[in-house]
């Protein structure tokens, strides 16, 4: 039988050096546009922080919150950023476990987006409290007066879940970062080298160290997945177990929120990767193939999300209860929510999903940036439309029907939050490699080609 040839290739020291140079360039050779961007983001973040300070001093009266809409921009933003944070685990853990080769350039960025989005998400309930020091009451510390948090409330489950997720995500990023920290250690001097040495924990790349690092990666990937699912499920139960608000009490909320989170999170990672590619000239690593695969993944995720959305609306209307009909009418057909709903549906699914059917779009950085930004505009509105119209309670005999108008303070805090996450991710790129160096090198080692007839087919080595 004719055997198709296997082309044997290995990484050479030249390739190693090139990868090291390219992927540490963000740390050692920072282009001026980077600092301009960071400066701008810092300015916007400062405006947001200033607005938050003003709100803390003057109280929640400076926001648009009023009866009956007491959850609005901050909680919308909280749910949104928790959603964004799901990208890290989705991409990194699942794709690592499934040995998807194309994941390699995208994993670290996804994990870092997870951590910083979680940090921002955590600030949102604090903003929402108006008096953030009150968060201490979620801990059982006032033993003397026998004051205990209500452990039956999802509002207490939230901090526990998010805290666990944040801790495990940091651990997840750190374990994957160790070999790259050693690269940084070997390329720096003085106190910076000492810092990297400390973080690299004596990494020398011995077979035993690689083995442990690999096992830790797999174990953490497997263990973090249930945490990832539980976090957004618990956030969804903040709403779903509420019986008094039409539109909240739905059994599908947990998986609906999780899949929505993956939809917006992966979209955010694609947007981030395209921006990094532009800023740091990572054309050799973030390839059209990478975003093509992410586009395919997004198409599946978006369609699953749309199915859940359809079930949520369908079974909301299913019973034809007057209060539910009133809510859906308000949410979908009454100004200004009607416009927001239209934008939401088009931006989150109607525009991007059909676009992703075309290979040309999936392989275009421009169109993928546009479509993924569109998804996140839509997904932010989705959370807003779940929360605000439901609480507005426009229904028969409602004694306190009212709607909500955000104040400038809230808008500034929200914009500041977006800027804060972007700034932190960029600053991270200044200190740590944002594309995993060892992962890329491993990909180069495993990469192979086979020749079938006249065609060269990309191939990959697999250890049995």
């Amino acid at each position, binding site marked *: *039988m004719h*055997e*198709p040839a*296997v082309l*044997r290739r290995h990484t050479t020291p030249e390739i190693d050096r090139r990868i090291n140079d390219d992927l540490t360039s963000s740390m050692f050779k920072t282009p001026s546009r980077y600092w301009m961007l960071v400066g701008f983001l810092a300015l916007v973040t400062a405006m947001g922080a200033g607005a938050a300070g003003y709100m803390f001093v003057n109280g929640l009266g400076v926001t648009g919150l009023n009866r009956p809409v007491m959850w609005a921009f901050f909680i919308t933003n909280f749910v949104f950023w928790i959603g964004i944070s799901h990208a890290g685990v989705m991409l990194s853990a699942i794709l690592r476990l499934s040995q998807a*080769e194309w994941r390699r350039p995208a994993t670290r960025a996804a994990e870092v987006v997870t951590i910083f989005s979680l940090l921002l998400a955590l600030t949102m309930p604090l903003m929402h409290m108006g008096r953030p020091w009150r968060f201490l009451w979620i801990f059982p510390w006032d033993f003397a007066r026998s004051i205990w948090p209500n452990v039956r409330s999802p509002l207490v489950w939230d901090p526990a879940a998010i805290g666990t997720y944040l801790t495990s995500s940091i651990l997840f990023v750190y374990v994957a970062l160790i070999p790259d920290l050693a690269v940084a250690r070997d390329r720096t001097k003085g106190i910076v080298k000492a810092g990297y040495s400390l973080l690299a924990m004596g990494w020398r790349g011995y077979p035993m160290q690689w083995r442990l690092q690999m096992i830790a990666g797999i174990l953490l990937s497997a263990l973090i997945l*249930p945490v990832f*699912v539980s976090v957004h*499920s618990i956030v969804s*139960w903040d709403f*779903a*177990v509420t*019986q008094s608000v039409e539109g909240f*009490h*739905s*059994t*599908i*909320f*947990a*998986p609906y929120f999780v899949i929505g989170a993956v939809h917006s999170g992966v979209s955010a990672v694609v947007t981030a990767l395209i921006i990094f590619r532009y800023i740091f000239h990572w054309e050799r690593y973030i390839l059209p*193939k990478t975003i093509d695969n992410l586009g395919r993944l997004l198409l599946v995720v978006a369609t699953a999300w749309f*199915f*859940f959305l359809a*079930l*949520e609306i*369908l*079974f*909301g*209307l*299913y*019973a*034809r209860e007057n209060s539910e009909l009133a809510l859906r009418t308000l949410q979908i057909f009454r100004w200004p929510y009607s416009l927001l709903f239209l934008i939401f549906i088009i931006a989150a699914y109607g525009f991007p999903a059909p676009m992703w059917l075309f290979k040309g779009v999936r392989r275009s950085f421009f169109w993928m940036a546009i479509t993924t930004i569109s998804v996140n505009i839509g997904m932010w509105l989705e959370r807003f439309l779940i929360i605000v119209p439901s609480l507005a309670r426009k229904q028969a005999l409602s004694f306190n029907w009212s709607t909500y108008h955000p104040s400038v303070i809230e808008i500034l805090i929200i914009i500041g939050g977006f800027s804060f996450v972007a700034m932190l991710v960029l600053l991270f790129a200044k200190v740590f490699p944002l594309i995993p160096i060892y992962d890329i090198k491993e990909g180069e080692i495993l990469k*192979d080609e*086979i020749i*079938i007839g006249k065609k060269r*087919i*990309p*191939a*990959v*080595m*697999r*250890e*049995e």
Partner: protein
Amino acid sequence: MSRVEPQIITKSNQEVTREILAITHTMGPGYKKAVVFFGLLLLLGIIGFIIRAVDAGFNDFRPWGYFMAGYAFLLTTASTAPLFSISQRMVHSHWRRPMARASEMFGVVGVLSTLMFIPMIALLPSSAGRRSIWFEWPGTPLYSDTLAVVFLAVLGIVLLYVAALPDLAVSRLHATGTRRKILDRIVIVNWKGTERQWAVHRASLRVLGALYFLFLVLVHTIIASDFAEALVPGWKDAIFPAFHVLSGFQSAVASTVVALFLLYKFGGYKDYIAVDQFWAASKLLLPLCLLWMYFWFSGFIVYWYGRQPVEQTILRTFMFEAYLVPFLLGVMLSFVVPFLIVMWNFVRKTILGPTIVATLILFGALFDRIRIYVASFSIADMRPDGLTSLEPEALSAVPRAVLPGAPDVMMILGTIGGAIFLYLLAIKLIPPVSIWEIKEGMLYRRRRKYLKTEIMVMGKPE
């Protein structure tokens, strides 16, 4: 549990074709006995159906709960099974190759499920004045459901036909006598294996796969809604159709694994089926078991937490009182036991381990469908005049559990037997191990030395 090492097929293309066709064309006496046995089971089911029809007639849907559960079990297992090959082909996994056809072959069971659906749709009470996802649109659910179910069955058969076309063409060349005549009639395309034909073949599989997936989700949704949820006053549960779909995915993998094991053990395809398939499929079963629990729990917690009387009655009906036993069996066999077994890699990397797990899951799916559909069918049409008045808002009391009578047992056995019977007939004509996919896989898979070890090199065409 004996471990079987992964294997690489080192035969030539011609040998593969000759061998697989020879196995398909010359089934042994065991095959004939199996066909007779399952044919008799089907006959038993038909007799059970006739007894029930004579006994209860078709005016009231309540005596038909077990028949409906049998139909739902077929939808969950056989009709969903082709999804396995669709999804794995979509992600270009190589390990799927020997088992893709085994899953697509379940498409032929669509004939039986469609036949079973006809009395069910006739029995369904009018949707007028009742909660329904169709909101009393004209022609629903009668025509809409029938159209969806029939279309899904047709799609399943077309998908199987298109996927098997290259093998049918080659099978025709090697066939003689009656088989040749049948194949001459079936293979209407003049398949020569040109580059253009392969391109069209690939595109057709993609389009048919996507269509099948969408219709399958739709059919699960409408069956779950029209034949269970809509019959129970006060049951408003958005996650239930999604849970139905998800348990279908789990059962699809399980059905394929069991079919593959039988082909491996008794079919004579040992040279082409290896531990790789069972190992990889069990890696899918693990998250699917967890997802089964997650979807169930997500619905349960929202109902349980609020303590609303209407929701408590639903929980007591379906889980904690009337149908406690099938519920517990469903949870144990769909989640607890499979999860505890399949979580261990040394078990996953065997042929027997994943097969046991898959079998348990199939039993779990059966009990779960019995719990859902027998309970739903046991509740009388609550509208005062049984036709158009509005039903009460909630189920007032937990109905008594309906235990299966002899005709029910006969119908359930007949449903399962009939599905296997049709499958067995199909594998006599269509090779249950895809020849062209095996040969394609051989091109992409090589072994070579790397440093001190031997590694596999897998082609990954984009």
